[in-house]
């Protein structure tokens, strides 16, 4: 595939900056970053923050509207929606982050090997990568979950596989670019072993864009997890995840909309925050062009 995919990949990973938007952007970036930190802290300290047990049912008080003591209301089992949204942050964030971490490590290995060794190996890897990249991610995830069974583990792997192509491609592009740089050529000419070059010279230099793109992909991962949840896969009850909550019976949308609307809003806000913050990172690290190079 051609280098234009680079622009595509870059475009997909963040919105370009503009001179005027710059000041406004960094202000937004601060808010987005602050929100994300808060979210992660909430997820970590969920047991101490939640007002109720996320799994405690109270069938006599089901579908209660937001109010006191259930600030965001209760679901059809009388469980506290706020507590579930907070615990849901745990599930959704950890599933997505773990998935992307796996995706990055495998993708970087594949991409680095492909970019470094080139030839038939590169062509084979990239053909597969391009194909999976063009395959709808929801189908990849659905087939994968059908194969190894539902649950958080398989959802995690499904998301990891769905986004593998992106990181393989990005790493490869970084490596190909770096390989042309003089200091690497020098190292190669000095007779260093491929493993050494990859490990000490190429990968450290390639990692920043990959990490940032990975961060942005966490947002996509959250959405994919939610969509899997819509098909009843993903987190197993009573474990809350945003996706599972949003899909907990579309009947809820009419009966007790807060059960579905609040997780939806949290997903939207989180993903937007992830994107804004990612943009700031790209700007701060000045790696826009390197992401473009993919």
């Amino acid at each position, binding site marked *: 595939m051609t280098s*234009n995919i680079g*622009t595509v990949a870059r*475009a997909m990973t963040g919105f*370009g900056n*503009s001179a005027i938007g710059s000041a406004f952007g960094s202000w937004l970036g601060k808010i987005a970053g602050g929100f994300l930190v808060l979210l992660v802290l909430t997820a970590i300290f969920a047991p101490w923050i939640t007002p109720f047990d996320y799994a405690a049912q109270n069938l006599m008080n089901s579908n209660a509207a937001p109010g006191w003591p259930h600030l965001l209301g209760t679901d059809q089992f009388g469980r506290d929606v706020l507590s579930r949204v907070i615990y849901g942050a745990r599930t959704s964030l950890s599933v997505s982050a773990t998935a992307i971490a796996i995706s990055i490590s495998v993708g970087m290995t594949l991409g680095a090997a492909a970019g470094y060794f080139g030839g038939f190996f590169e062509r084979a890897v990239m053909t597969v990568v*391009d194909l999976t990249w*063009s395959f709808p991610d929801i189908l990849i995830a659905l087939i994968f979950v059908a194969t190894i069974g539902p649950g958080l583990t398989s959802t995690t792997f499904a998301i990891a596989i769905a986004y593998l192509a992106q990181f393989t491609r990005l790493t490869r592009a970084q490596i190909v670019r770096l390989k042309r740089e003089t200091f690497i050529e020098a190292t190669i000419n000095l007779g260093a072993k491929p493993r050494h070059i990859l490990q000490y010279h190429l990968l450290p230099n390639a990692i920043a864009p990959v990490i940032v793109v990975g961060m942005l992909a966490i947002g996509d991962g959250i*959405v994919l997890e939610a969509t899997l949840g819509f098909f009843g896969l993903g987190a197993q009850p009573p474990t809350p995840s945003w996706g599972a909550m*949003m899909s907990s019976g579309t009947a809820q949308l009419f009966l007790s909309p807060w059960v579905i609307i609040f997780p939806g809003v949290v997903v939207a806000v989180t993903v937007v925050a992830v994107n*804004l913050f990612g943009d700031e990172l790209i700007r701060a690290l000045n790696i826009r062009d390197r992401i473009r190079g993919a």
Partner: protein
Amino acid sequence: MLLRYIFYRSLMLIPVSISISVVIFLIVHLLPGDPIDNLIRVGSSPDDRLALITKYGLDQPLFVQYYRWISAMFQGDFGEAIVLRRPVADLISQNLPYSLTLGGLAFAFSSIVGIILGTISATTRSAIVKQFMRGFILLGSTVPGFWLALLMILFFAVQLQWFPVSGAKGWDSLVLPVLTIGFGGVALVARVTRVALLDVRREDFVTLLHAKGLSMRTILVRHLMPHAMLPVVTILALRIGWILGGAVTVEFVFGRPGLGLLLIRALGQRDYPVVQGCLLMLALAVMLGTLIGDVAQAAMDPRIREEKT
């Protein structure tokens, strides 16, 4: 030159297709469960079950089953659906038009609107427009499709009653699904267009175009757009697979038949021939998409044309 390029590029697809068919076959047959459970009903005996397994050749070793499938495939025979009891080719050809209509319209919608919005956002001087576009693009690429679909129905179909809630009859049933899929697509295309335009604008030759005294509009239309279209074409070509199979959630919510829904339903029933057929179709569409993308690139960019022939 271009023809030569297409020829060689197509040759590469043959080994890829064969490997893909093996992968698809293995994935489908490694799925736990089997289609026979979906055929037998209360009252049939365990012997009836065995008879069915034999009838559909599911007791044969995997490679025998693969050989049968692939050799039939070479004669254009997609096989017979086990649970759905129809020729797979029939099922696909019944569902494909729906996918193509929905996908094609969503594709056209997102390309045209996306390119226009992307161009506006890259060229506007107004900070408000810029921030608005930024917000739109951000939202468009983050909202889950099923969520958007439900909201669309609630607002446009239930509140305003402008369009039917679901179904696939008449043009008006297409509007909401196309908008739902298109929303994300528009955001993506606008994003790519915008970034590509901003990238090209920084190239040296653009300075020289200005130095020639060309107007901004001439430069945009004659020089910047063709460049910006290279990545846009790439992403659009890559989306062909998404068009055919990626609309599952939208098909589900809007009650439209389609390849994605057929595939997911067959997957649930382990209707092997249907799943295989659909996946192969999608894979072919994806390969065709990358081929079209590459060819379009080559047609547009003389550098690629030479590099690859």
